[in-house]
């Protein structure tokens, strides 16, 4: 996706290198809108922190120069506690962009300028983009950019990024700044006088040991702030000097409060002249909406209502479209391919029809559902509602060591696990994100619910409804249990602090939503065209060779080999093979069972055959396993894409395999113990 401006090498411009401009800003400031405007690229614009989780870059031209724009993740400060913060400061220090364009939200200028105070401690040149001036004006906040500019000693450019206003001026200011090596003399925040002496002492002590490219004065300041990363970096390098440095740091353990307080005092001075604030105490529209939207009772009802509409849309529009695509794209495509490939060897025709088209095509039929989910999600995000949903759900999610932000991704899982795993991008803590991704497959998706709804009446007749509810509840109990174990055991240790900005409500910007929707769908399609293609072909081969039928295939043989394991759960090998083929798509369970039991050959339906083959305890065990089993390949591929780790993907498989089989065994053996047959 990144295009490092190759067109810089056209005739006559060889001598001028590409100018690097990094976009920096807190979350919810419209930074990604600025990036989209400058580069014309679709990319996430988020009202919800942590969306831009890796730097994206694009190129543009300004004043005859080729400029590379790097969009850095939104971050409130340049501390070390969050991954985004570390990433931004490492980028600024190591890559040394020519100019940093800091985008700030004019409605929350005081908090936003904190990042400026931190940037000014680094050897970078800054221009300030003042976004959402119009919204601020509506709240009675009057800002005079020229006065602010004079106070700060920086270029200040007013922006209205959602309408593309001021963006060109911002980049021009950046190019001008880069062209003047000596014209940059910003007003920098000063540290309290007693700390200044300490800081000088620290600088003197550490100067010979600070590795390039870290600036010595910045490293000293970060040590004094108690910055964990810099302390861990310098501790081994300082050697004999460490005790002296450590003693100073212990004496000033509270320094961060004084330093942060000092920065806010400086911000107050900078803002005094150029900004007129309305008298505090007046109720904004956001506060009025929040009285209802974040109320423990009304807020919950609103959330339930919104989710109800989302699922109604999915069933009313998404599912019929999915069925239509299945018939007209996958099934018709398979038949068409078989007809076209009549002259080709039979295995090739089979491969194309039943391997590639059936596998990749099935995954593509998920597109309408994803489109609906991501459109609604995009609107809610841009509106500013997502933070409220997280807030309302926070206390429930705390039960499993997660916080409110994990709720929405998990809830999406009831529709389809794929958007749920993708939705976990919005959780900024890497550990909480990982736990959310790992437990997501335990949320029963529509496909698994459909299998359950088909099979439960066959085995349980009138009690089917209770069995269905019971198994869904079992999934949620297991999900909570696994969440608690993961949090307490393997991934614990990180304080699950719930600190989240509640952005102002604003009208959704359709251009932004479309860009984010497009990006997510492209990511999904890329996955379908790569990893899912490979897995589809592989699974087709495993279920075809060497014998030609599923009974005589590798998969069938594996199922037969595993029969002793199945017997502990009361299952025969056909059932095990059905579980294995459900990996392509969860609905496969039913056709596989039909083929393996020879349904239709003796005029008997699936119901007749299955009802005779399994006892009720075995049937219950089978349904429980199928509800808790490894997710479909689309979900697993998404897990791999989002965690960027085969290790975590493998762990997810092992975890679900273990949990589902253990539950199956426990149910069957437990039922036998109490004498249920």
């Amino acid at each position, binding site marked *: 996706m990144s295009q490092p401006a190759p067109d810089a090498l056209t005739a006559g411009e060889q001598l001028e290198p590409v100018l690097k401009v990094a976009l920096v800003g807190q979350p919810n400031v419209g930074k990604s809108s600025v990036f989209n405007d400058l580069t014309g690229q679709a990319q996430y614009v988020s009202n919800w922190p942590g969306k831009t989780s890796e730097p994206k870059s694009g190129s543009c031209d300004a004043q005859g120069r080729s400029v590379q724009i790097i969009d850095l993740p939104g971050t*409130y400060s340049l501390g070390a506690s969050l991954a985004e913060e570390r990433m931004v400061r490492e980028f600024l220090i190591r890559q040394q962009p020519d100019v940093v364009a800091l985008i700030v939200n004019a409605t929350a200028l005081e*908090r936003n300028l904190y990042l400026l105070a931190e940037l000014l401690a680094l050897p970078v040149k800054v221009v300030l983009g003042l976004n959402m001036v119009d919204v601020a004006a509506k709240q009675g906040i009057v800002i005079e950019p020229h006065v602010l500019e004079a106070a700060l000693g920086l270029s200040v450019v007013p922006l209205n990024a959602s309408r593309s206003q001021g963006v060109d001026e911002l980049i021009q200011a950046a190019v001008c700044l880069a062209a003047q090596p000596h014209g940059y003399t910003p007003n920098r925040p000063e540290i309290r006088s007693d700390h200044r002496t300490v800081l000088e002492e620290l600088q003197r002590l550490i100067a010979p040991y600070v590795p390039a490219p870290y600036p010595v004065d910045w490293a000293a300041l970060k040590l004094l702030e108690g910055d964990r990363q810099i302390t861990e970096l310098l501790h081994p390098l300082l050697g004999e000097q460490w005790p002296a440095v450590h003693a100073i740091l212990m004496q000033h*353990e509270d320094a*961060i409060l004084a330093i*942060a307080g000092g920065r806010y005092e400086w911000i107050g001075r900078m803002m005094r002249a150029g900004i007129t604030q309305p008298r505090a105490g007046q109720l904004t529209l956001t506060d009025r909406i929040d009285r209802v939207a974040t109320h423990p009772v009304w807020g919950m009802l609103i959330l339930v209502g919104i989710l109800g509409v989302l699922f109604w849309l999915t069933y009313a529009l998404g599912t019929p479209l999915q069925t239509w695509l299945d018939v007209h794209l996958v099934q018709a495509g398979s038949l068409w391919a078989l007809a076209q490939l009549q002259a080709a060897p039979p295995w090739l025709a089979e491969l194309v029809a039943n391997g590639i088209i059936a596998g990749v095509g099935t995954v593509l039929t998920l597109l309408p559902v994803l489109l609906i989910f991501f459109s609604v999600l995009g609107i809610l995000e841009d509106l500013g509602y997502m933070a409220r949903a997280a807030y309302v759900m*926070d*206390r429930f999610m705390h039960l499993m060591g997660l916080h409110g932000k994990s709720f929405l991704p998990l809830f999406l899982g009831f529709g389809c696990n794929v958007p749920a795993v993708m939705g976990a991008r919005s959780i900024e803590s890497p550990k909480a994100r990982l736990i959310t991704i790992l437990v997501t497959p335990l949320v029963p998706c529509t496909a698994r619910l459909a299998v359950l709804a088909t099979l439960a009446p066959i085995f349980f007749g009138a009690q089917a409804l209770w069995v269905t509810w019971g198994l869904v509840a079992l999934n949620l109990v297991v999900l909570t249990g696994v969440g608690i174990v993961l949090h307490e055991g393997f991934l614990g240790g990180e304080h699950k602090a719930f*600190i989240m900005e509640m952005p*102002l409500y604003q009208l959704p910007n359709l251009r932004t939503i479309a860009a984010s929707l497009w990006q997510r769908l492209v990511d999904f399609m890329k996955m379908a065209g790569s990893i899912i293609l490979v897995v589809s072909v592989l699974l087709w081969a495993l279920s075809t060779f060497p014998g030609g039928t599923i009974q005589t295939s590798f998969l069938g043989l594996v199922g037969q080999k595993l029969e002793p394991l199945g017997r502990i759960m009361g299952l025969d090998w056909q059932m095990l093979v059905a579980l294995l083929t459900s990996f392509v798509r969860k609905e496969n369970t039913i056709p596989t069972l039909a083929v393996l039991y020879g349904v239709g050959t003796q005029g008997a339906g699936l119901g007749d055959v299955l009802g005779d083959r399994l006892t009720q305890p075995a049937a219950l065990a089978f349904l429980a396993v199928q509800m808790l089993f490894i997710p479909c390949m689309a979900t697993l591929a998404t897990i791999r894409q989002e965690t960027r780790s085969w290790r975590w993907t493998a762990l997810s498989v092992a975890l679900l395999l273990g949990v589902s089989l253990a539950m199956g065994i426990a149910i069957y053996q437990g039922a036998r113990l109490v004498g249920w047959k």
Partner: protein
Amino acid sequence: MLPKHPRPHHTGVESTASTQELPLSQLPAGVTAQVTQVHGGHGLVNRIACLGFTPGAEVKLLQNYGHGPLIALVRGARLALGRGEAEQILVRVLSV
């Protein structure tokens, strides 16, 4: 509920014993107060301080139902805080 062993190593503004300090979690909604101290582990204090909760900062509670998370207005921005985090921030009431 306060944590069993709060580490009181971050004291910014010296507070006199006579004025009433209380955790932010016990401040009623609609009341404006001034931050006096921030407790807790290094990482948490660092995050909270950067977001504007430094001694001397004015904070107004927008929502506090006595249980669950709360919403505060600090440095011109709205922040949702978990109850556990709000217990680590001590404030003194300025106005009702």
